[in-house]
């Protein structure tokens, strides 16, 4: 019963994904709102699941990869639902909902057992600050990548003059570029704060701010990548397709830093290990 909300949320996300995909294939307009409602319900249940976890844990439930991935998916769905007001496109949902589902299914492969007693280092206010900032930044980048993907799709359809029904389902190019334009500085700001908060946390606990842990290194690489993107966009005026491609590349880096590094390269953000995430490597 521990994961009742979590599991029902997954069911709703999967249902939303299925209905969205059904909509794209069948183009039965009535199905799109059903998918959206399913996604929204999933999001609400997902929120309950996080609260439930917090109650069980007695603190912010962010200490395990299970929770981190779940939180990440929750942010993505939240941003997607928020964006529905401005960019109502079922295509958006048919990428965001499966993405959240996959992240949650991936998260559920990790142990959801809350370690008792909680590693002392994780019982700090730095934990929610650092993790929420970093994950929110990642979620913004995820949405930018989805927007970028749709941009490339839509631009290809328009350039090749294939103005069919699928073209109509996709938002306008300028609208999609707007996601990038507003998302980029916002996400970059969150990422910067996320890295800084991590450094400050490390400084307060271990006495040094930076230790070239793999996660730190890759975060810095990601940060530079997005800094370059901000530069290209603001100084050189890059936009449209180039910005969309960069958003996709950036997101690959983000995902590698977030999941790949922890899983493959270890370090004190590692998913596995004797004490799990946050174990002091010293």
């Amino acid at each position, binding site marked *: 019963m521990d994961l009742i909300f979590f599991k029902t949320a997954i069911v709703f996300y999967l249902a939303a994904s299925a209905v969205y995909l059904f909509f794209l294939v069948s183009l039965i307009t009535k199905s799109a709102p059903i998918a959206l409602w399913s996604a929204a319900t999933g999001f609400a249940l997902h929120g309950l699941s996080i609260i439930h976890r917090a109650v069980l844990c007695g603190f912010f439930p962010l200490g395990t990869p299970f929770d981190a991935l779940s939180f990440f998916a929750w942010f993505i769905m939240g941003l997607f639902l928020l964006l529905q007001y401005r960019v109502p496109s079922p295509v958006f949902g048919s990428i965001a909902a499966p993405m959240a589902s996959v992240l949650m299914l991936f998260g559920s492969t990790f142990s959801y057992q809350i370690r008792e007693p909680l590693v002392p280092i994780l019982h700090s206010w730095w934990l929610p600050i650092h993790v929420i900032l970093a994950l929110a930044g990642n979620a913004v980048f995820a949405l930018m990548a989805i927007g970028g993907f749709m941009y490339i799709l839509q631009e290809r359809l328009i350039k090749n*003059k294939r103005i069919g029904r699928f073209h109509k389902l996709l938002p*306008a*190019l300028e609208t999609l570029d707007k996601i990038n334009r507003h998302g980029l500085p916002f996400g970059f700001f969150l990422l910067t704060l996320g890295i800084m908060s991590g450094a400050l946390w490390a400084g307060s606990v271990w006495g040094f701010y930076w230790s070239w842990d793999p996660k730190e290194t890759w975060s810095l690489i990601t940060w530079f990548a997005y800094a370059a993107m901000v530069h290209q966009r603001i100084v050189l005026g890059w*936009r*449209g397709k*180039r910005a969309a491609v960069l958003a996709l590349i950036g997101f690959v880096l983000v995902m590698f830093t977030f999941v790949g590094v922890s899983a493959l390269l270890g370090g004190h953000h590692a998913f596995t290990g004797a004490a799990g995430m946050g174990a002091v490597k010293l």
Partner: protein
Amino acid sequence: MSCEVLLIGLNHSTAPVSVREQITFPGNQDGEVAHRLLSVEGVGEAIIFSTCNRSEILSVAEDASATTPRLINAISLINAIKPESFMDHLYVKVGTDAVRHVFRVASSLDSMVVGEPQVLGQVKECYKRASAVNATGPILNRLMHKAFFTAKRVRSETGVALAAVSVAYVAVELAKKILGDLRDKSVLLVGAGEMAELAARHLAGQVEKQVTVVNRTFENACVLAKQLHGRAAVMEQIEECLVTADIAITSTGSCETLIKCAHLAKVMRRRRYRPIFLIDIAMPRDVEPEANDIDGVYLYNIDDLQSVAAENMGERRQEALRAENVVLEEVAKFMDWTRSLDSTPTIVAIRQKLETIRQSELARCNGKLADLTAGQREAVEMITRSIINKIAHDPIAFLKKTKSRPKRNLYLDVAQRLFDIRGPESDPDSGEEESVEK
């Protein structure tokens, strides 16, 4: 040997603009050239159609196959151009085909943008010029009025006219898909073609900024700019205009490409890669087709827009088919009429009519004549018959005597009217026939 409707000409689908530009029948502003064509042997009536997309001579000829080369000669003389340079692009249509072609042109079925409304006005203008100098006769007068009537039917009975509007609609929808909200976007019009104006009008309703009109002749730009509540600019400013515009519609149709890729690449840098939607309506194209590959440039020509519009409305083809049927119906009616325009059937019909009157009048008086002897009866028959023969003699002799084709057609037509032997298909649209009486 009866006379035939003969049409010789070329249009946007058979001839490149370089050829079309050379055959414009200069000096026909007041129909003078059309009148001069009457001096070509065998030609009885003539109208010159000259619009930006077509140059055609519509005539009534005694012997079509013999008259055709003479008319081609006349075209080459009037336009001061060698026959070889346009022969390959010509089409020659005779009889039913010619009539059908004229009806299709007037109904905007032969237009570059099918259904565009301006062509009917242009055709009417050409006809007015020819009839002002009496270059038209009964056949072409009737043909043209039937053409206008057909155009009216096509417009009201089929959705073909909507097709042209739908092209403009597609342009607006695409602009929205590229540029998002159109309210703060600006429209640039390069050249002032019919369809460009139509599209610009649709777009102007969506944008709040002023429309800019650029044209080779500044005065024309000013006129159109005034109509669209926009501003005019000279051709030299085109690069500046492209930098500021979000949607550009080009329709100059000049022989060389107006906007080249290198040109646009420079413009895009200056725009800081803001996307631009180019709509190229000109034929030949004003914008290099490869420009579509430049990042941020979305180039659509009129064919692209039309095929999108066609996809949008599945019934469009059906509408065109219905329009063609309307045309065929009207062509058949017209051909029936031309066949009747022969002296023999008309004379026969006049005789028949008089004979019928005689018979029926005799039958009415049958009671009063009952007492007559057979001889007296015969006398009455003879007297009445000779009366109608005497009455009919002069008109019939006159009809037989008239040698000149256009005159004979006119008299036959008048005779048919005077004796009311038009047959059942007497015009429902006779209101349109004032000038036939002229």
